[in-house]
């Protein structure tokens, strides 16, 4: 679990671990199902050691083991930095591109067959994500994230279409 995510989830108000988990699940919908409570507590104790989070005095009224966590000033500063950071995952297409080239050069595999297999896998994923998106209410947090994944997969599938067209031509000219 990425530390900054847990940290930023605490910025709203001091919270208990289960509340953070509920907020994450709300934001991620079916994509958050793999996150377990243990991961959040492990991350919280790391953040505590780093001085970014404090464990507040236990409120007796909510039970003996209910620990409420809050950001320290350093934690707040880290959240502000994280929000301002511009990061974006880089598309990782070079590996597949090289697969096609090396397969064709060595005559080990038909590049078109490799494209077909890849396309089947991406369509399968697109189907799953789209089913999940259709099950969400319009405008939910999770629907927006699912839409992003759908559009990504669609872009990858279009690139595979370009790969297919290109390699079909190349194989004809061999």
């Amino acid at each position, binding site marked *: *679990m*990425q*530390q900054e*995510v847990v940290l930023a989830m605490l910025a709203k108000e001091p919270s208990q671990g289960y509340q953070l988990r509920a907020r994450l699940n709300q934001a*991620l919908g*079916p*994509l*958050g*199902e*793999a*996150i377990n409570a243990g991961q959040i507590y492990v991350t919280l104790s790391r953040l505590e050691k780093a001085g970014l989070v404090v464990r507040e005095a236990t409120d007796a009224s909510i039970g003996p083991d209910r620990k409420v966590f809050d950001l320290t000033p350093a934690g707040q500063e880290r959240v502000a930095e994280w929000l301002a950071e511009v990061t974006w995952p880089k598309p990782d297409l070079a590996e597949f591109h090289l697969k096609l080239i090396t397969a064709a050069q060595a005559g080990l595999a038909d590049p078109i067959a490799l494209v*077909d297999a890849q*396309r*089947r896998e991406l*369509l*399968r*994923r*697109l*189907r*799953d*994500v*789209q*089913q*999940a*998106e*259709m099950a969400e209410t*319009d405008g939910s947090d999770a629907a927006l*994230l699912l*839409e992003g*994944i*759908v*559009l990504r*997969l*669609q872009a990858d*599938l*279009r690139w595979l*279409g370009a790969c297919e*067209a290109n390699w079909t031509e190349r194989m004809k000219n061999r």
Partner: protein
Amino acid sequence: MTKEQPMTEPDKAILQARGLRKEYGRDEGLVRAVDDVDLDVIRGETLAIMGPSGCGKSTLLHLLGGLDRPTGGELWLDGKRIDQLSERGLAHLRRREIGFVFQAYHLMDELTARENVELPALLAGNSPRQARERAMEFLDQVGLADRSTHLPSALSGGQRQRVAIARALVNEPVVVLPDEPTGNLDSAATLEVLRLFDHLHAAGLTLVIVTHDERVAATADRIVSMRDGALVDETRLTGGGNLADLVTLER
């Protein structure tokens, strides 16, 4: 000349093509728009036909629905041979047994949503009252009962396409043939239409969809790819992967 119906699981195939061809021009200029296509559409399935522009997929759909006549080959719909029907027979087929959905909706601008859906029901011989009731029933099915008096110009793209789908359904056709149904739609409207197809599929409707939209194809049970007039690949889609594997929150 009558031939036996092709031997496939006869209880399952609702629409079958055997050696289907459509040619234009002659000699040097001969174009095989549809080139020896064999296809079995199973009752209740959603089949997507994909392929680049000009591969012949729309021509194939037009042949399947009797909008156009094949140069050769056979077509069977629900156990009846349809490639040799008279013009009258074809018109009847298009009216009663096939539902078309087009990219540009093809609604009549001066008619309300309800009147657009009513029209084919009237042409099929329903009384005005029956036609009106059926139109309302199918508008309701596509979630637009409250838009029945709107003109198409007062509807969003997704809503127009849903009206067009209600119109395609109103005579309870054996098969519905959408041609690039999301081609004019943005992402949200595409989802509206996909949801509707999903409901119709669950209700047992047979859909053959021509599309180059991967999102539409991903909702199908089966995808066939077309190149230069011929079917070249078939993919059967199964889901069931783990969604949570698709996001990562690690760093």
